[in-house]
């Protein structure tokens, strides 16, 4: 029984690695301008895990849901709950694959846990601040002296604004910043960020730049959403530059922490807003929900058909590797 479960786990890891390598390889050659939407970038991180999960679950198929097929083959290992002894030859290699994976994910999981702890400490602190209303929106003001504006929290995201930043911005800039942050709240981007970071921690072979591309696309989306609400894309572009100027006045940036887009992130966002006819960004669509729900549908269909074929295909590949 243990061999069946371990073999399924090893198949999960191996397939996530293989699909991840293909996806990351293709993504390197995709120009940024091809995918302005955030969902395709979230998909690049979720797809390898979805494929791996489908194949590894298919390995459990014949015994619990159908008749045992073990007498139909004699040229590869059999993974079947009815005859666990037949999967015995896979015990050692599967254990090695899983052990190597667990060791490789450890640093990422620790980093994620530390980041989560930092976020939750911040959210706890933010929730202690007195809420204030700006129009229809509830915000918390801080006196950081830095030009910061952010949205934090998964279940009930909170918008945080620096009081000095707010005072320095004009009326239209304020509206643009607020609507941009509301875009993050409506799209539940913090939830997506958490899920994608967790998926990346489990797939250390995927490059971090995939997450940064999602993040950049999410910012573009919220910029367009703000532009639609404010009614003028150039007003949002101007707000970005205004906040950038205030940020430059307090610059103490550590170059080691620069994202993949560096300064071009801001440039690209402004250029995207100024593009004639740029599509408005409707909020209220969470990337994880948009991807996971159809994926679960596909998974359910695969389990009905052609799950059994997938099961045999995986066994055949394992047989080729084993012999």
């Amino acid at each position, binding site marked *: 029984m243990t061999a069946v479960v371990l073999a399924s786990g090893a198949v999960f890891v191996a397939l996530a690695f293989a699909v991840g390598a293909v996806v990351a390889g293709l993504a390197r050659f995709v120009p940024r301008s091809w995918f302005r939407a955030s969902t395709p970038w979230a998909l690049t991180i979720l797809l390898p895990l979805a494929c791996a999960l489908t194949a590894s679950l298919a390995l459990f198929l014949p015994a619990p849901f159908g008749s045992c097929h073990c007498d139909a083959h004699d040229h590869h290992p059999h993974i079947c709950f009815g005859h666990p002894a037949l999967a015995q030859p896979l015990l050692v290699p599967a254990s090695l694959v899983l052990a190597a994976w667990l060791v490789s994910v450890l640093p990422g999981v620790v*980093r994620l846990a*530390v*980041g989560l702890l*930092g*976020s*939750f*400490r*911040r*959210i*706890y*602190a933010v929730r*202690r*601040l*007195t809420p204030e209303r700006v129009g229809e929106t509830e915000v918390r003001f*801080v*006196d*950081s*002296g*830095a*030009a*910061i*504006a*952010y*949205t*934090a*929290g*998964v279940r009930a995201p909170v918008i945080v604004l620096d009081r000095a930043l707010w005072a320095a911005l004009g009326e239209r800039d304020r509206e643009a*910043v607020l609507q941009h*942050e509301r875009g*993050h709240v409506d799209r539940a*981007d*913090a939830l997506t*960020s*958490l899920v994608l*970071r967790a998926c990346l921690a489990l797939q250390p072979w995927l490059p971090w730049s995939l997450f940064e591309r999602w993040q950049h696309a*999410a*910012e573009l989306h919220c910029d367009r959403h703000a532009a639609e609400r404010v009614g003028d894309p*150039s007003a949002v*572009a*101007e707000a*970005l*530059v205004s*906040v950038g*100027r205030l*940020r*430059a006045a307090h*610059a103490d*940036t*550590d170059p080691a*922490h*620069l*994202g993949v887009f*560096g*300064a071009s*992130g*801001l*440039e690209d966002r*402004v*250029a995207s807003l*100024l593009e004639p006819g740029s599509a408005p960004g409707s909020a209220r669509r969470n990337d994880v929900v948009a991807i996971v729900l159809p994926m679960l549908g596909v998974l359910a269909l695969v389990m009905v058909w052609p799950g059994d074929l997938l099961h045999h295909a995986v066994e055949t590949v394992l047989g080729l590797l084993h012999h």
Partner: protein
Amino acid sequence: MSSPPSPALGELETAVLDVLWSSPTALSVREVLTHVRRRPPLAYTTVLTVLDRLHGKGVVVREKEGKAYHYSPRVTREAWFGERAARALAGAAPGRDEAVLLAFLDSTERVDPQLLDKLSALIAARRGGTAK
């Protein structure tokens, strides 16, 4: 006591607030003056100004008793320092590893003033083009 506002306070304001926190009852300006330990001693008018400023910031409440105002802190010492700590933590620039946070502008992004000038010119040109 209600949820505290937490503006930045000067050294003198903190010393006066400390006296109010140490007292179980509301204090007059003269009572505060006798309790506050400073070298050289403070003038009555200085304490009055400081209390007035603290009242203006919403940190203390005052009630008129006879001809003079009596002052008491609006928040407990614990609530005040809790709020200060929360503000400091909430106001820290977001780090790259914070899992559930999205900033308006990447706080780790280096912003070049020349780039900002170029972008401003781009926006102005676009506005000019639209206006035509």
